[in-house]
């Protein structure tokens, strides 16, 4: 395989607007001066400011929210006067008992596996950059894209609660109310989406050793 010099926009003194993908020349600016994209008006940066610190903060917050989200009940079903509270995992177990295996798998993946994997995936990306781990940048970019794409599916349980709360309202006969876990779970999902957004995937490809020239083996 031939080695070929691959230039990033940053090392060529250029920057790209992340909102409209316009390529711009990096102008002479004073420190802390705000740069605005001439095409779309968004603030532009060569790299998102404090990307790693923000992503760390949000990922840890999400992880903390996930603990009460899984321990507290997410909803209470009162059927003919008998209240029955259930946590997220109770819901999955109940569906397995009812032989609704495919739905149980979907809920397990969306509300238990995805949030945790997302947070741990982000932490892996953060550590790989900060500790200069020798992992394939291409695979790490793929991991980031997967994290970005699957995050929204965790909203499944929150939406289910919102449907059931509105639908099952028959007073003393049958009634469903939301539980405390709904708030924490919802917070965890929203925070992980923000965490994925604040991560700048271009940092994966930045040369960790500025002394050496930026050379990459062309795959």
């Amino acid at each position, binding site marked *: 395989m031939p080695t070929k010099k691959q230039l990033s926009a940053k090392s060529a003194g250029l920057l*790209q607007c992340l909102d*409209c*993908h316009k390529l711009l020349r990096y102008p002479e600016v004073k420190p802390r001066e705000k740069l605005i994209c001439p095409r779309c008006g968004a603030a532009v940066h060569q790299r998102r400011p404090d990307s790693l610190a923000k992503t760390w903060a949000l990922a840890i917050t999400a992880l903390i929210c996930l603990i009460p989200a899984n321990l507290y009940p997410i909803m209470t079903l009162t059927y003919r006067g008998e209240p029955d509270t259930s946590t997220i995992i109770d819901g999955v177990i109940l569906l397995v008992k009812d032989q609704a295996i495919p739905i149980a798998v979907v809920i397990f993946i969306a509300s238990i596996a995805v949030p945790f994997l997302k947070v741990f995936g982000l932490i892996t990306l953060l550590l790989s950059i900060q500790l200069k781990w020798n992992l394939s940048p291409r695979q790490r970019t793929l991991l980031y894209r997967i994290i970005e794409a699957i995050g929204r599916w965790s909203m499944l349980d929150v939406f289910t609660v919102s449907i059931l709360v509105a639908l099952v309202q028959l007073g003393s006969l049958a009634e469903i109310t939301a539980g405390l876990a709904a708030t924490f779970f919802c917070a965890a999902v929203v925070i992980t989406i923000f965490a994925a957004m604040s991560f700048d995937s271009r940092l994966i490809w930045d040369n960790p050793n500025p002394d050496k020239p930026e050379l990459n083996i062309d795959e």
Partner: protein
Amino acid sequence: MAATIAEKIDLSGLTACHACDLLIENQHMLPGSKTVCPRCGTTIEDPIADTVNKTLAVVITGLILWWPANFMPILTMTIIGNTSDNTLMGGVIDLYRGGFYWVSLVVFVCSVLAPSAKFFLLLIVLLHIKLDHYTRLLTTLFRFYGYLDSWGILEVYMIAVLVSITKLVDLAAIHAGLGLYCFVGLLLTSILAASNLDKERIWESIEQLCQQKNS
């Protein structure tokens, strides 16, 4: 050294990968052939022929379905002669009444506000491009469309409807309402709108309109 390279480079034939920042020659590919970043594999450009007309048609279809999908009953439940139903907005209101303000806000944004706003913003931006009319708000509106992309998640809501049916099927008789059919239509149109929208082309059109206005 970096500054000298930047001065020499002609920007018109260049673009950068938004995922890894690699400089790539802009090939202005024909519709149907997409450009992929050679370094990280991210899709750079996927041109779509006639994107404005196609997307506009889909957006108008979506807006017709918008009212029934948001305000007509999605599911109806019957237990021993007692019936109750739910709508997209009803779930938001009942969560709010139950004291779950934050959850209701998030459900409102993800299931009602963001999907609706995406349709309306697209309609405004595409109509302006179609009619060659420029206003300064155009760039802000289309930028907002980009921000809403992560939050409009109708497909997840659709699966949540199926999960709710599975959970209640032993307890009561569940029927699909008119809202559900319109909701499925709205979901399909939102997917079609996203897949027919060529954002790079729209940004270029907005830039051209701006230059026409200034010259």
